[in-house]
């Protein structure tokens, strides 16, 4: 299959501006700025059915249309925080096919009327930020960024901004706080960023992969895009496959591809030819899918179908768990992650993840009794529906699903 997003896998040196342009790059942006009205651009994206690739799957065109046109200036932000355990796709895009991402961001900027765009990268992406800065400078030099572009009165500049190690800064309002030079703690919502965002101005935030789709949609049209994927989720998605598979990595596939195809055709199957025992389709934030029936692997990966398995597709960071793994160990890992990353702002998440990490540690180290497992399940459920942002909720997913679906793993390690 030819790639739409990971085009560097076929086109060598597409991360060079001249090569990118030779392959049709930046024509869509130029066309949008010189020939289209902003809302026409938004309409194309709306019609394509593109949904956000950052996790929540919110329709992108619809989000862009929410921008408050009574309040100016507008900002646009690319979310390149990529910190969900199991997710590593945005990084590959930015390293391999940076101009397509930048062009998507530029088209988005035009559509929402932003003259300044920020790329918020997790602090660890230091080298990527430096490389992007160089690409942005090239675009400026060649007249794709700057003032009065292509002789219109539209101006645009792009800036990179590094985080400094905090998973929560992927959450869009925490990201804005961080971008404003503050502690990355989520804001109260509403108001939502398209009304009140960066510096209290209307702001659109999208994931890197989301933006990277846009130039191709503008070039080939909404219908073309919709011809791929499913009705619920048109288009293609990069699945970050990790865990106990032979060939972990990013796989760009149409939405609706089955787990089986991802794991066996692309991922080379499970290590040591073992059995898939559980799947975490959305990284550490997933509810674990219990694979007790081989047919489950034939589930199509889109938002709806995965939800039917009582999980979520999220950012499609698919972690494969085989029968060498005990769930008490696994949730000890995930809970410690969330405990460490809880921003501390709201009570249930701050205290709940702390409490859960005590319990999973006790359970995993064999000091706990059966009642502790019940208590853990109870504490996790007690957190649900009460936190300020989704991180707190995420922290309970693996806990509740693993205790409910893999109880025997816990009973095996607790004291009689």
């Amino acid at each position, binding site marked *: 299959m030819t790639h739409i997003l990971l085009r560097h896998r076929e086109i060598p040196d597409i991360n060079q501006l001249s090569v990118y342009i030779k392959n049709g790059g930046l024509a869509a942006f130029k066309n949008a700025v010189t020939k289209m009205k902003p809302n026409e651009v938004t309409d194309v994206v709306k019609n394509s059915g593109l949904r956000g690739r950052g996790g929540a799957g919110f329709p992108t065109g619809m989000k862009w249309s929410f921008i408050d046109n009574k309040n100016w200036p507008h900002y646009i932000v690319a979310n390149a925080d990529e910190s969900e355990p199991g997710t590593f796709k945005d990084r590959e895009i930015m390293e391999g096919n940076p101009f397509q991402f930048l062009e998507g961001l530029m088209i988005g900027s035009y559509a929402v009327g932003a003259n300044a765009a920020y790329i918020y990268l997790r602090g660890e992406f230091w080298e990527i930020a430096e490389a992007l800065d160089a690409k942005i400078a090239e675009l400026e030099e060649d007249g794709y960024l700057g003032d009065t572009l292509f002789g219109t009165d539209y101006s645009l500049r792009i800036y990179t901004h590094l985080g400094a190690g905090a998973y929560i800064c992927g959450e869009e309002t925490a990201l804005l706080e961080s971008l404003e030079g503050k*502690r990355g703690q989520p804001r109260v919502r509403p108001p939502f960023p398209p009304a009140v965002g960066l510096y209290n101005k209307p702001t659109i935030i999208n994931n890197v992969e989301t933006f990277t789709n846009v130039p191709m949609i503008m070039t080939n049209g909404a219908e073309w895009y919709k011809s791929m994927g499913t009705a619920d989720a048109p288009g293609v998605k990069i699945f970050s496959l990790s865990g106990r598979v032979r060939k972990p990595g990013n796989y760009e596939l149409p939405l609706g591809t089955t787990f089986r195809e991802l794991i066996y055709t692309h991922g080379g199957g499970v290590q040591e030819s073992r059995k898939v025992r559980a799947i975490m389709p959305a990284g550490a934030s997933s509810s674990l899918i219990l694979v007790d029936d081989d047919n489950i692997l034939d589930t199509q990966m889109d938002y709806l179908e995965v939800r039917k398995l009582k999980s979520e597709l999220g950012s499609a960071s698919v972690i494969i768990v085989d029968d060498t793994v005990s769930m008490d160990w696994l949730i000890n890992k995930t809970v410690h992650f969330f405990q460490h990353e809880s921003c501390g702002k*709201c*009570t249930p998440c*701050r*205290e709940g993840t702390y*409490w859960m990490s005590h319990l999973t540690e006790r359970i995993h180290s064999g000091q706990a009794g059966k009642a502790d497992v019940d208590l853990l399940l109870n504490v996790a459920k007690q957190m649900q529906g*009460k936190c300020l942002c989704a991180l707190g909720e995420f922290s309970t997913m693996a806990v509740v699903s693993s205790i409910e679906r893999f109880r025997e793993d816990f009973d095996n390690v607790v004291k009689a």
Partner: protein
Amino acid sequence: MTKQVTLTIDGKQVTVQEGTAVVDAAKLAGVDIPVFCHHPKLEPAGMCRMCLVEIGRPMRDRATGQFVMENGAPKIQFMPKLETACTNKVEEGLVVVTQSAKVAEGKNSILEFLLTSHPLDCPVCDKGGECALQDLTMAHGPGKSRFIYDEKRHLAKQKPLGELIFLDQERCIQCARCIRFQDEIAGDAVLEFDKRERSMQIVSRSDPGFDSVFSGNTTDICPVGALTTVDFRFGARPWELGAQASICAQCPVGCNITLNTRREAKTDGEIVVKRVMPRQNEEVNEIWMCDKGRFAYHYAGSKKRLAKPLVRKDKKLARSSWDAATKLAAENFAKDKKDFVILASGRLSNEDLFNLKSLADHAGGKAYLYSHMAGGELTSLVGVGAGTNFAAMGAGTTILVVASDLYQEAPIWYLRVKQAKERGATLIVMNPRETKLDRFASFKVRYEYGEEARTVHDLTKKSKEGDALLKSENVVILYGSEGLGVLGSQSLATACAKLLNENGFTGKPNNGLIGVWERANDQGAWEMGFTVEEDLAKALKGKAVYIVGADPVNDDPKLAKALEGAAFVAVQDVMETATTEIADVVLPAQAFTEREGTLTSGERRAQRFYPTVPVTGESKPDFAITAQIARNMGVILEGTSASVVFDLLAETVKSFEGLTYAKLAEVREQFPIVGRGDMYYGGTTYENKKGLGAHLSAAATRGEKVSIPRVQREPVPHPKDKELLAVPVNKLYDRGTTVMTAELLHQRIGEASVSLHPDAAEKLGVRAGQTVNVSFNGTSGQAVVKLDTSIAEDIALVPRSMGIAIREPVAVKVKA
């Protein structure tokens, strides 16, 4: 008028202003939703999640936008999750349920989470008895913690954030009220969280720690015992405290306060003041107060209190009877009418000042206000009056602050001016140097010392500041005495009064002149007809002087010298001072905590204070002492009842007309609701049950014709070669009598200082931190050098009441 919105809370229909948070609307409807992080004065944070409720919204048809009806009423759609009542704003038709099994589970869970990290050391906690966590746990909490106790974290229990406020890290529930107060309300962002997750802790990195004059307020709104004042911690249990309403006497703002008292073994079972707490008056101090007011109350219980009248015999002060002492004073005052001088300070009450002024009038003496600042006759002409309220100032109002550093001189006005600006008012800050208020100014105007009156006069001539001011509906001017003595402040006041009067900014609410006086009741003295004297030393020399509530001997060697040459000196005060030491007669007065009376604030609001603790020794209220002296001079003044004195005052002084003690004691419903059973909501600030006070009228309000005299410009001394122009500035924590008795504040008071421009310092060959000698007119003093880049090179800033007696600008020599 903002839009009203009607919603239903627990079946009750409530109509409130648009934009109100659901939790506040519920409070107005009498429904208590428990909160920790929410505070009605702060922006919503939604952090603690204690206020979770069920919220239903009327369904609208997507196509038509009309309500979907069901059984004749809009169909209500409830969200699957509980929502925070603090972050959701009211909407038309909203349905809020605070009493359901689901909500109860929510509250119970949040409390259990909070208690997992809480030490539960209520029996030794200062907050016990007025603690939100304790109260809410009793009401909604789990019976037992399922979190095993030995896994609890142990953290610092006595961590100083500064020398005034301590943090108990174990008790903190991370609600961020203190951080948000400092950032949003005080404008001193000197508290922050360090770290994140459960390791998150409050820290202050300022130097000195917790560097804000509003720090004490955080202990009132801290919903647990995490923040305590060094003054009160381990001092008493809240439930054993008595409470009496009072007025803070530290500055012209007139914050409403409550004095908490208790019998104390240390004082032989006497009732003493244990702490000072703010008392709500939304028009004056809201629910806040500054640290000076909170901590500098100790003088009333000081060991140096005077308990008995003293009369000089054989060069020594010896005990006397009231009769003998007042007779002696009366005889001397009556000797020669021309030579009788009263020198009284604005520390006294209206009643005291009225009797003093009456005595002077009847006996033919002079009545001087002990102050370096003039212009009060103008504030009684065109001052602010009835209906004036900083809280109502916003867009359409211009506030001009000139020659005053409000943060240092009247901290609560600083807050209120800042808030008015944030609500849309135009703020013009005029000062020769940078002050804290500059950060919030719409316009900053700098001028040279000595140019203040001219700058005000020229303001309305084609400047953008002037245009903004003239276009406003309302204008308030606060003028102070930075760099000014009697003559300078007189010219400045005149220029300000003229500007207001000529442009119609007088005689109506939220318009007029406010003096940023040195003392709490200077305005009262002006209303009574006191005046200030430029050359006080000359005015005292050879006279029979009656000094009340002032310590000129300590303040100024020149005055000390003048009093040496006085014919007779009677001193009436609460404490031994350098001036009582040279007196012929010493008359012990009661402290404001021991008696009743009224004070007139800078915004001309008369407010009552009440007797709180037993009287010290034989001391008497000032007005009574004056009446007794007067009687011996054949003048009959009221000497027993403060309220009767006030009635006479109201009959005599026009601006007080119509006011009575009963009127000043009136209260109205105020919002937010504080100090009741729901301390978690507004904090431990006291509810106002004893009076909101009332404005005096101004001549302009009474419709009298006001004419403002011409501005007389004061010539500023020209420093010669090798000299600097020393200008007096005011400091909150100075060496004043009342402040020095608060040992807690000594670190903040610091040493006498002189601020120089870095270039000037270099020229003089002195460094920051070095002690130098400052000399002028034959006097000199030691001061530590500080640097200030915002002043001119020929200027030396010298704080008042810090050891170097400076009343007005003078040329000085500074030497290493």
